[in-house]
């Protein structure tokens, strides 16, 4: 028989979770549902009559010119930047996980890039990297390096470097926070047992930090897939479609082609493609307490 205490516990759970549920419903579930709904309609700027056309928009998505180019570039970009940022962020977190003079100042400086709005960063870099008036080409030229940073052969590596510069601190911050609650007694025990730093890192730190690293990598990967601002400001997806991400592709479908129904359908397809990642990540992040070694 349920006791009064357990009934109160169950009610308390719902009451305490109510604000989050309401927020999620209003700002996540409802807009996503609206988006899916819009994808079911023929809804363009040129035609004021909105008509239901079922799955026609969704069927069209897979044969749209440029769609697969955008998917390929987005996948390549997201994987490369996430991998580089994960390695650099983790390395930085390990380096910063000690006391040294000027640590607070250095820590603050490290976080500055993620505090700048991506579109503003795009504008800043557009000026900084300009071949005629930009500081970066002038400095490079001083070292005898006459590299054109926006040329077709260098523009993709440039975008990757800029993303790494901006978002490595994000992974660093999450991993560093995780390291602060790392049990020191485990490290001391390893030291007593004669384990070297590399062995400790490989056999203790990385396995025990797996949930934190997984969370950081997942969040960063999703963000990288959604990249829009910096690339749009710097290259508008060009030359041709060379640097068109899926977000830029969706934006252009909506606001250049004026086809909101099709843009919504593409967004829904992307959402569905990414959903299978969630249980994979949850498995690594949300492990029950007793199951961690």
């Amino acid at each position: 028989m349920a006791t009064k205490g357990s009934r109160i516990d169950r009610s308390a759970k719902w009451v305490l979770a109510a604000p989050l549920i309401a927020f999620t419903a209003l700002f996540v579930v409802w807009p996503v549902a609206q988006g899916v709904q819009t994808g079911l309609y023929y809804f363009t700027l040129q035609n004021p009559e909105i008509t239901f056309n079922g799955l026609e928009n969704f069927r069209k998505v897979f044969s749209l010119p440029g769609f697969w180019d955008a998917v390929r570039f987005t996948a390549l970009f997201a994987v490369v930047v996430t991998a580089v940022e994960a390695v650099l962020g983790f390395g930085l977190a390990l380096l910063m996980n000690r006391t040294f003079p000027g640590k607070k100042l250095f820590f603050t400086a490290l976080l500055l890039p993620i505090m700048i709005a991506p579109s503003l960063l795009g504008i800043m870099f557009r000026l900084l990297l300009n071949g005629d008036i930009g500081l970066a080409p002038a400095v490079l030229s001083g070292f005898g390096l006459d590299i054109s940073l926006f040329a077709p052969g260098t523009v993709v590596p440039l975008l990757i470097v800029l993303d790494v510069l901006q978002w490595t601190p994000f992974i660093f911050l999450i991993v560093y926070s995780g390291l602060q609650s790392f049990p020191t007694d485990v490290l001391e025990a390893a030291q007593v047992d004669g384990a070297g730093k590399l062995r400790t890192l490989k056999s203790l730190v990385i396995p025990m930090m797996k949930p934190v690293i997984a969370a950081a990598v997942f969040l960063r990967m999703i963000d990288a897939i959604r990249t829009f601002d910096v690339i749009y400001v710097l290259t508008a997806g060009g030359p041709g479609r060379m640097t068109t991400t899926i977000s830029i592709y969706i934006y252009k479908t909506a606001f250049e082609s004026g086809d909101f129904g099709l843009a919504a359908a593409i967004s829904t397809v992307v959402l569905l493609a990414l959903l299978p990642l969630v249980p994979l990540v949850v498995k690594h992040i949300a492990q029950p307490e007793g199951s961690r070694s």
Partner: protein
Amino acid sequence: MKQSGLWVSALVVGAVVLAGCSPSVGEGQGGEGDGSGIVKVVLWPGPEGDAMADVVDEYNAGLGKDADITVQMTLLSRQDTFSKEATLMAAKSSDQDIYFVASYNVGQFSSSLDPLTGVDTANYFPVAVDGLSQDGELYALPVDVSNHFLLYRQDLIEGLLNDPAQVETYRSVAEQAIGEARDPKPADQWDWDDFKAMSAYFSESANPASPTQYGTILPARNLLYNTMIWNDVLWGSGGSWTNDAGEANLNTPEAVAAVNVYADIYTNGWTSPDSSQAEFPETQAALKSGNVAFALQWSAGFAELNDPERSPDVAGKIAIATVPGGKTHVHALAVAMNKYSKNKAATRSFLDYLATTDAMSIYAQSGGIPAMPAVLAANEDLNPAFGQIGESIDKYGYSVPVFPKTFEAYAKLAEDLSGAWIGEVPAEDALATANADLAKLLQP
């Protein structure tokens, strides 16, 4: 009932509800109103927004006050004004009474606009009016007009023309560049071969004694506004988007030649490799820095380049010439009545005022470039380019056909051709794709 069954039922119900509802939009009806009250106008910031602010202030203090009409202007971001307006239009919003539009998107927006009637278009450049008309109806009132010029370093070009030694060098460079040892010409006489030859002559890679690093900068970024500039090369080479029957016409030798003007300059290093990402600001920077000798540029760029404070290195040295080939894109920036406005009578009153030379004189005096030739002529002392803008538009202006997908066509051509402009894709292949895309977009 098992939990999984509950979830499936919830999903099915949700799907049925979704399918039964259409995307939520506004009421979808406008209204005349009582001829007074607030009229809301959207504009973008920059010279046009600043100039219009003065016109609005004048109206509110005078005619508007008498008629009990107050105009409120909202400035959105320059980058995203049209996207935000598109969202409002898609939602059939009545929030704004007047939208800011342009020749290149009025076709896309026309289903959300009311055609304007009773406008005396005699005061405007005919090409500006044509560019805002669709199926014989005027959808927006021209406010500002944009065209292109060849902006060039007068000191360098005249130095070349007056120095026999330089002329000899030029002939030799021209022979390498275009296969013909031709003499240099004054800028207003160039054709596209002269443009290429001059690009080579003023590039260190072809002429180590060149006073500039590169001859020119090419606006080759994947951007619909760059299609407008490249259109000058296309039209000036004898090509166009459509033939007389209104069919897509990009698969022509003229179009190939037009693409290859850009591609030859880029691949031969007569322009910075950064041209692949260049548009208006980069062109300004290149001219300002003195790194290039000339460039195709929007008319709005000249004032800054001629200003000693903003361009100390080149002010007074930059001159204006007609675009080689004698064709310049012209588009009008304009204001249009929202079909779903609830205050159309008052809106019409303000638009009637905007159509007067008085309003446009204030606009010119406040830094705008009005689409009225008489106003430009009367205000030449304010901006030396005004006289040439008027002449250029009258003699050399063309406007691209207006159809519902004109805006998308500009963007599509930039996407299809920007790779070819920098030699990454063969011109014929890129134009075949562009022609096919244009043909689809021309379909009703």
